[in-house]
């Protein structure tokens, strides 16, 4: 009797887990992915879309085409998880039974939590948001642009820095950089949380005349006055605010009573088990781990969950642990990028920004559909230290 495994969420984590489980367990398991839209979105592309460098159509694919043949796909919203009964309730009334559950539900945007944000700011955190921002930037003729953060945690910590540097490139290409005042509103006392990376980008920002305001966490926006207020008590006036919206866990998590105060799933940092539930795992943006909410995190977590579920099914001792491995590119403008590679034991040592790392990121973007979701995990470019978890 095959083990029934349900994977909630068809994003990068869910898709990879489902494919790896199916490849590993074959007939010993029946794997089902549940996703509300059945469409797989390559979110790292939004930033490029907003800057006019990517086509929205190429960022979305039918999830069915990314899953192995023997993985089932149910296109429905899961509304409730019942851990004791081992079921998941679906919006249209049905229910799925599971022996093992993988929560890969990601994060949702909650701009309504910050007064004035929805009407007073743009963002590149959704397809629609990125498209609207692209149009706004096309119309932009000069003025004050502020790029900031209205909630933590958020997906892709480097994104605001990348955006402001690449926006600087765009404004220069259009010949309107002189007429634009560009400011990064950082939640911290430096441009980026990783100090060594911050030391790389701050001189670049300074050379390009990009202002840095520190300890500025957006608290509210007055859309008509164009005023942005920080929770540290400061205000700025702007003509165009681009802000990372607040993020929360998905409603199914909250409504199942499984989430913390922000809807994130309490998860063990090594085993990736949902705390208190040994047949339930969580990966990717959905967890409460204070780790990067990035595709690479889900990508490196997936094999650990697969290994542990396989051990449970086969009755062997689970040995795989997630070692905290993360790998993120950081575009630094001017067709250069650096890379942030780290794990729980090895801090990042970002290389000097180069064209080669920028090429690596662009190539990764292009190859994504052929590699990551299908479980053909490419050996990501290394060139140095690496965290290998077993």
């Amino acid at each position, binding site marked *: 009797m095959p083990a029934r495994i349900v994977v909630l969420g068809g994003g990068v984590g869910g898709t990879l887990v489902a494919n790896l489980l199916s490849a590993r367990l074959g007939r010993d398991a029946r794997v089902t992915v549940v996703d509300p839209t059945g469409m797989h979105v390559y979110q790292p592309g939004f930033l490029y879309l907003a800057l006019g460098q990517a086509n929205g159509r190429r960022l979305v694919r039918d999830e069915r085409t990314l899953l192995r043949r023997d993985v089932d796909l149910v296109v429905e919203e899961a509304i409730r998880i019942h851990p004791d009964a081992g079921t998941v309730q679906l919006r249209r009334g049905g229910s799925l039974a599971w022996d093992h559950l993988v929560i890969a539900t990601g994060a949702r945007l909650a701009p309504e939590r910050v007064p004035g944000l929805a009407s007073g700011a743009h963002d590149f955190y959704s397809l629609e948001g990125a498209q609207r921002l692209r149009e706004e930037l096309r119309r932009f003729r000069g003025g004050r642009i502020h790029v900031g953060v209205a909630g933590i945690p*958020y997906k892709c910590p480097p994104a605001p820095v990348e955006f402001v540097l690449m926006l600087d490139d765009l404004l220069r290409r259009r010949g309107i950089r002189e007429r634009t005042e560009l400011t990064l509103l950082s*939640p*911290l006392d430096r441009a980026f*949380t*990783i100090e060594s990376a911050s030391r790389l980008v701050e001189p670049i920002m300074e050379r390009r005349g990009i202002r840095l305001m520190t300890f500025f*966490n957006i608290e509210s926006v007055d859309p008509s006055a164009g005023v942005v207020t920080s929770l540290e008590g400061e205000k700025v006036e702007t003509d165009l605010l681009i802000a990372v919206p607040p993020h929360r866990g998905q409603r199914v998590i909250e409504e199942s009573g499984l989430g913390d105060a922000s809807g994130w799933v309490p998860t063990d940092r090594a085993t990736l088990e949902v705390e208190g539930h040994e047949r339930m795992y969580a990966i990717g943006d959905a967890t409460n781990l204070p780790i990067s909410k990035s595709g690479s995190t889900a990508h490196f977590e997936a094999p650990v969950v697969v290994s542990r579920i396989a051990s449970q099914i086969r009755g062997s001792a689970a040995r795989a642990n997630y070692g905290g491995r993360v790998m993120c590119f950081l575009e630094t403008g001017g067709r250069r990028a650096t890379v942030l590679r780290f*794990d*729980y034991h090895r801090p990042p040592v970002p290389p000097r920004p180069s064209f080669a790392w920028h090429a690596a990121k662009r190539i990764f973007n292009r190859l994504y559909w052929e590699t990551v979701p299908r479980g053909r995990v490419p050996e990501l470019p290394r060139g140095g230290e690496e965290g290998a978890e077993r």
Partner: protein
Amino acid sequence: MGATVEVHRSIDARGMPCPGPLMSLIGAVREAEVGQVIEVWSTDPGSATDIPAWVRKAGHDLVEVEETPEGTRFVVRKAR
């Protein structure tokens, strides 16, 4: 010996440089009610300066800083 402070939310950010202990603390303070206490565990040497700096600027209370072999524990009360 002082009374133990009741912690409403505990964040173990040891070995997690990104988003990092300070960012995670800021996120938790944003979501908390005034008066609630958040603790953050960090192995990042920069936390010793940047956490107190933000707490001061944002007008909250740094209740305790405890150094242990496993990392440093910062306890913050949301004051406003």
